[in-house]
């Protein structure tokens, strides 16, 4: 599913982080560990073809995004990868449902609003479908972000510090949701985190190496 070998990633000409190897199968989860500022987010962005990969290879279902033309890379990223950010990045002014269908809209594929609604209902947001994003609680917004990442049945779900600043209960709920998202979509799940609470839940971990340049 996801294969990474000797990845060195950064921005522009600046090398930021190294990931010797990473392999995640369909439905499995791997934690990407490292302290704050170690370059975990940069690795996630490199996996999605957004940060510059200076060395090594990244393949998702055998496809190396970095070798694709920009237009194909954007399209493939939208269809193959679901992203969940610590800050969630829901768009205020749009309803929960519209925030979920933002992913097919941006990827330029058909918007299945029925499936989006079903996902929200399955995540316990049946009554919040038309609620504007800015009126959702943090927990509700988190589930909307997860539904958005799941909608296109991606091959890979990348989650960046999804449990940061959450209490233990909320952390457990989010971990459940992420695990459920991966198993229901059959996606490989990579969670970039420095939250030790997740280690108990997802024992497979990989550490990133910060490069000092």
């Amino acid at each position: 599913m996801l294969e990474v070998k000797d990845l060195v990633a950064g921005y522009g000409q600046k090398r930021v982080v190294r990931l010797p190897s990473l392999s995640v199968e369909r439905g499995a989860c791997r934690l990407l560990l490292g302290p704050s500022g170690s370059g975990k987010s940069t690795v996630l962005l490199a996996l999605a073809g957004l940060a510059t990969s200076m060395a090594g290879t990244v393949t998702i279902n055998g496809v190396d995004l970095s070798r694709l033309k920009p237009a194909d890379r954007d399209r493939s990223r939208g269809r193959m990868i679901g992203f969940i950010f610590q800050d969630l990045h829901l768009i205020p002014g749009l309803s929960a449902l519209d925030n979920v269908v933002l992913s097919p809209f941006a990827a330029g594929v058909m918007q299945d609003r029925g499936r989006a609604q079903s996902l929200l209902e399955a995540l316990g947001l049946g009554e919040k479908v038309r609620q504007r994003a800015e009126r959702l609680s943090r927990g509700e917004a988190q589930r909307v972000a997860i539904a958005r990442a799941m909608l296109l049945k991606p091959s890979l779900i990348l989650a960046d510090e999804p449990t940061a600043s959450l209490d233990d209960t909320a952390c457990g709920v989010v971990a459940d949701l992420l695990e459920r998202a991966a198993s229901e979509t059959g996606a490989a799940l990579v969670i970039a985190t420095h939250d030790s609470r997740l280690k108990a839940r997802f024992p497979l971990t990989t550490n990133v190496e910060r490069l000092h340049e």
Partner: protein
Amino acid sequence: MNRFKLVWAFISRKPLTWAFHALALALGVAVVTALMLVQEGLQSRFKRDLADIDLVIGAKGSPLQLVLSSVFALDVPTGNISLSEAERFSKHPLVKRAVPVSLGDNAMGFRIVGTSRIYADIYGGTLAVGAWWTGPMGAVLGSDAARSMKIRVGDSFAGEHGLSMGGEVHKDAAYLVTGILKPTGTVLDRMILTDTESVWKVHEEAHGVEGEGKADAESHAHAEHEGEAHAHETGEPHDAAGPAREVTALLVTYKSVLGAVMIPREVKARPDLQPAVPAIEVARLNRLLGNGGEVLQGFGVGLLVLAGLGFVLTLATAVGQRASQLALLRVLGARPLMLFSLVTIEALLLGLLAGVAGLGLGWTAATFAAQTSVNTGGPVLALPPAGLREVWILGGALAISLVAAIGPAIAAYRTDPARVLKGG
């Protein structure tokens, strides 16, 4: 989900900011629209009122004043000319038509014009009801005048001295309405026509001229109406055989182009007369009005430029504030061109709203100006119909918005999600 919905979500986050900038653009559009409408309305009105009058012969003074008062019913006359001089030019072999005009009184603000029936022919005026007068003190009213005065055929009314309301009422000299004209869309609609004899009669009675032969009989009677010439203010003294007859001006149409060469020269040779060519005076007036119009139009364009700059700054700020949302869209698979289009659509949408609002405001202002002009006795503005002008103005508003959007749209296009979203 579509781009418009997404853009609207962006706009709805800062409704007051956008409303302010849209209003600024709308005001600029409104000023430009209103000015164009008023200018076109005035020019169209002047052109129609000018009809085929080639020359105005009147007393010496400002030729523009002579034309404005005699043709457009706007200013006070320069004075009067003797009837004998007027008749002399009426019978000139190079004159096709000569219409005498005698001014001095009004009724409810509508000018009473002592003239002949031919005056109505200049503007193609025909009777809607009633008949033409058959003698002095009969009056035929233009359509606007009749409607405003709520007067019918068979009714009577008294004139007031002067060309605007508030003058001495000629109580003992009532006019009888014999006819009402159909609307013509010209100055004729606001006129009260009567035989020239009526004007003479009213003022002879008002002055008590009964052959005393007092040389100052005319000048004292209406001294309170300073600046307003009168049918006999500058005339010769009345004598025992009756007063010297005068008219205010003579509206002349040439028989041939030779008239344009000969007649003004002959008029200039007369000591008390001056020729005024309406076409030249209207051009002069347009230049005068044009200067003021240009200043106002410059103000409108300035508003548009300021609104455009406001758009640039606000869009640039908005793109900066939405960096994470734009980056998210890129992460979700959006191409840079989509981000460019979102900013462009946002600017065009606001430009369209502001443009439509500005057109509405501009039309409202022009309509108000036209109504005010009528109510205050100014020229009746015939506002031109909406058409290509509005398309151009709307296009201009959209073009300003588009130009304003280019920089911020390029910034959105260049959004680097990796830089925006990088965390730990």
